[in-house]
């Protein structure tokens, strides 16, 4: 900004005409104006916070809203404006017809304005509903974020959400714009309290530069001109701040990364490698290394249409040639040999799900990163993070606007740096191979140390570990993988009840319904087990216990394989049922009690109870053996409701995501 030192141009207005007695020399003006830099900023907040009004002010008050756009605006305002007689700045900003009619902004809109110090690009993102997707989009290219707060409301959930997203996307400068100061009588205490409140929150996040500006967008107070209503405020107005904030050192100039985008081969003698310098300074004559081949050479020339350069820096788009003939193609990366990026197939990343369709973790998405495209596998979701509370939770997949920390394996190695260090080589997008939509975007945290890799990832170490596991009889397919395949949680539905209570009828009906709904299900009942596996056992309490121990282990094996087991057994005692639960595992066990009276059972199964009356059979629970009614049954059913009982269990399973999982 050396023009501030030039007395001939310092007072020139960007709008033409004269100011302070200097005549506008257009040539001088343009020569200077061409050199001003570019600031990309994000505005976050809702219409209620006065965001559109603030943007309207910045655009309007810096005289870049042309008069005819204004007259069209007045016409639109009369028809659908929400601001009464005043000009509705929001209408100026809302682009698409459908949105105008709904009175909401539902996408990122880009606005442009200039002063004589800078050119500005505003990414205007709405505060509601699709907030995460849109904010993340707007933030990805922004140098700075303005977060709006309504002074009458203070720091609210939305403020925290916006700030979190801004820090997630690595924006280094945040301005907290405390708007509507006119509604709190421009009270310094209100402003100070809000700032203090915000500071306690923002220190948990990684934002190096946080600023606070009190203003009233509606009244134009402290937006462009310095405030007169808040003599206690000695800082800059919003526009003054935006014009002066130092951003050129925000880029990474340390780690040279040149991700080859295009190979130029006009003739046999010339081979140029074109790319935008992602980070660092690329210099003529320097020794370089090409990834993944690790071949080395020297930079011969840095070519541009406007002449060769000695060095190039981000975000310049240049073409380089090398001293040696090396085979290089798009997606390769040229770096300095003493400063390599990660070259890995496994890494951890924050991922924002951007698609209406929820994540299907079994899909091998395309990953596009630094001019490289490869297929990936989503190995694991470490956790989902709630943007409002920052609480972490375990999930199996992400939905629209959800953010998770995930482990990814790529088909081929990619060359990356942690996003925190390098926005260009730390960011990627995921593309659905079927729809071709951009379904997610990611910010790489770092590679994973091999001991931290989830079990699914296969590398040399893992192969060795697998060998060990096979040796110990462990399976290489995890229960989790099987469960995803079957779309169900391997569980046991254990039905207890007296002889003749209708257990088996329920069990067989349930099996059929689950099967027809797509579940993978196995039924175990007394007659099937006793006809073979438990053939030598009788009905004494001891043999009953052994019999049920065997059943429980079979059920556990089935559950381990991701299958649902329906077990229909009298299992009369609490102790016996406890033993079964211990073998199978409490979290996989659903106890269903068929609550039938002895009367009902006798009527239902007269031949058995008649034999018992005649003394031909013994060991009948509920008759000569005790049957303890389970106190802890998950579901209690009456045989009289037989038409609905299977459905009741189906609903129970669905509610708990046992089946279906998704």
């Amino acid at each position, binding site marked *: 900004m050396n023009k501030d030192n030039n007395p001939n141009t310092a007072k020139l207005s960007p709008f033409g005409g004269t100011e302070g007695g200097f005549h506008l020399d257009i040539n001088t003006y343009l020569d200077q104006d061409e050199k001003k*830099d*570019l600031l990309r900023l994000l505005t976050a907040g809702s219409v209620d916070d006065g965001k559109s009004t603030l943007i309207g002010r910045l655009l309007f008050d810096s005289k870049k809203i042309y008069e005819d756009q204004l007259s069209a605006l007045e016409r639109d305002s009369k028809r659908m404006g929400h601001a009464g007689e005043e000009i509705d700045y929001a209408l100026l900003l809302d682009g698409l017809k459908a949105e105008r009619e709904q009175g909401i902004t539902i996408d990122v809109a880009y606005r442009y304005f200039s002063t004589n110090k800078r050119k500005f690009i505003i990414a205007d993102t709405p505060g509601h509903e699709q907030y995460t997707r849109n904010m993340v*989009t707007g933030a990805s290219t922004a140098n700075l974020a303005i977060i709006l707060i309504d002074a009458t409301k203070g720091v609210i959930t939305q403020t925290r959400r916006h700030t979190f997203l801004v820090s997630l996307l690595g924006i280094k400068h945040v301005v907290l714009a405390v708007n509507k100061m006119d509604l709190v009588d421009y009270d310094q205490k209100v402003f100070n309290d809000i700032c203090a409140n915000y500071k306690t929150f923002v220190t948990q996040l990684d934002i190096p530069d946080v600023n606070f500006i009190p203003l009233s967008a509606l009244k134009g107070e402290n937006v462009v001109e310095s405030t007169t209503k808040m003599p206690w405020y000695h800082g800059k107005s919003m526009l003054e701040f935006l014009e002066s904030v130092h951003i050129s050192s925000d880029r990474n100039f340390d780690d040279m990364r040149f991700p080859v985008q295009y190979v130029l081969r006009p003739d046999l003698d010339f081979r140029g490698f074109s790319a935008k310098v992602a980070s660092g300074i690329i210099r003529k004559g320097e020794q370089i290394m090409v990834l993944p081949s690790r071949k080395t050479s020297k930079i011969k020339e840095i070519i541009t249409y406007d002449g060769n350069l000695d060095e190039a820096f981000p975000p310049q788009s240049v073409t380089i040639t090398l001293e040696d003939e090396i085979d290089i193609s798009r997606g390769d990366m040229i770096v300095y040999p003493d400063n390599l990026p990660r070259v890995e197939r496994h890494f951890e990343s924050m991922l924002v799900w951007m698609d209406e369709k929820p994540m299907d973790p079994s899909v091998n998405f395309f990953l596009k990163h630094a001019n490289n495209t490869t297929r990936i596998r989503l190995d694991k979701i470490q956790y989902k993070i709630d943007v409002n509370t920052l609480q972490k939770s375990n999930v199996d997949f992400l939905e629209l606007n959800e953010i998770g920390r995930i482990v990814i394996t790529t088909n081929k190695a990619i060359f990356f740096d942690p996003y925190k260090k390098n926005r260009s080589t730390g960011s990627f997008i995921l593309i659905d191979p079927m729809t071709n939509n951009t379904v997610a975007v990611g910010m790489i945290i770092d590679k994973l140390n091999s001991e931290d890799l989830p079990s699914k990832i296969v590398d040399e170490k893992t192969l060795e570990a697998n060998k060990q596991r096979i040796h110990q009889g462990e399976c290489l397919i995890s229960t989790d993988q099987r469960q995803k395949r079957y779309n169900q949680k391997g569980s046991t539905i254990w039905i207890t009840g007296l002889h003749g209570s209708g257990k088996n009828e329920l069990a067989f009906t349930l099996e059929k319904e689950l099967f027809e709904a797509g579940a993978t299900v196995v039924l175990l009942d007394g007659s099937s087990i006793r006809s073979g596996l438990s053939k030598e056992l009788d009905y004494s309490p001891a043999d009953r216990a052994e019999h049920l121990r065997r059943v429980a282990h079979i059920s556990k094996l089935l559950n381990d394989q991701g299958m649902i087991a329906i077990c229909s057994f009298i299992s009369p005692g609490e102790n016996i049922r406890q033993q079964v639960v211990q073998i199978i595992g409490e979290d996989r066990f659903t106890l269903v009690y068929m609550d039938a009276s002895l009367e009902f059972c006798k009527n239902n199964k007269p031949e058995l109870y008649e034999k018992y009356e005649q003394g031909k059979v013994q060991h009948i629970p509920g008759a000569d053996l005790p049957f303890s009614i389970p106190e802890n049954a998950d579901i209690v059913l009456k045989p009289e409701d037989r038409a609905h009982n299977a459905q009741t269990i189906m609903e129970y399973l669905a509610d708990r995501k046992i089946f279906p999982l998704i």
Partner: protein
Amino acid sequence: MTEYSLSHLKELEAEAIHIIREVAAEFENPVMLYSIGKDSSVMVRLAEKAFYPSKVPFPLMHIDSKWKFREMVEFRDNYARENGWNLIVHYNKAAYEAGVGPFTHGSKYHTDVMKTQALLEGLNKYKFDAAFGGARRDEEKSRAKERIFSFRDKFHQWDPKNQRPELWDIYNARVHKGESIRVFPISNWTELDIWQYIRLEKIPIVPLYFAKERPVVNVDGNLIMVDDDRMPKEMAAKAEMKMVRFRTLGCYPLTGAVESEADTIEKIVEEMMTVTVSERTTRVIDFDQDGSMEQKKREGYF
């Protein structure tokens, strides 16, 4: 200490070059749509820069409505010849032979048939899977939310609700057969940026942009130039010589001139900075109906 900082123009240039190269790398058969206007002229220069010292690996295509200013056509042919461009000129032959024109058929029908339909015909004929356009987001409200890579279905239609998220400088270039992408490398440029860049880079533009005495007719407040004898005689009879220039270029009967003395880029910029009318108001076609640009975009027009 060296400050590694680019001017806004150089940063916009670098961004555009990156976008243009990305399309050349990712698509099998891209084309650059060339309207002969100032924005196109800038875009064409950016393409030349992107592949220097090689030739640009894709052709230019001009959709000729057959009602362009004569000076535009002349400029087009000279520029392509002198700069070694592969230039495709496509027009709606059937409609042209049927005599479609704005004076006889009205602006709406003419634009639909000779521009929108002709464009779709041209894109289909050569099976282009990506087409560069010189649209800018600051031109018109519905463009503020346009992506740089704008997805079009196999009917070339644009669905504002079904656009892909676009983050950082990573562009999703995957399309199924028959679908395509419109690419706008100068999305982030403003009209002022364009003029400043033309001045800085000494980019040749059609002389119609500069003020000169020209025969114009006042039609409902629009100054329409008499460019050939197809203008109805009674209309042409009202022509008077005025010092005018054009802020945008299109079909001559649909493009209003502005009275101006600006005959250099500097004067144009000076005029622009004090001007009170945004550039698209000199295009007659926008007045058809509210939201009409959005409507045209949905149908496949840029």
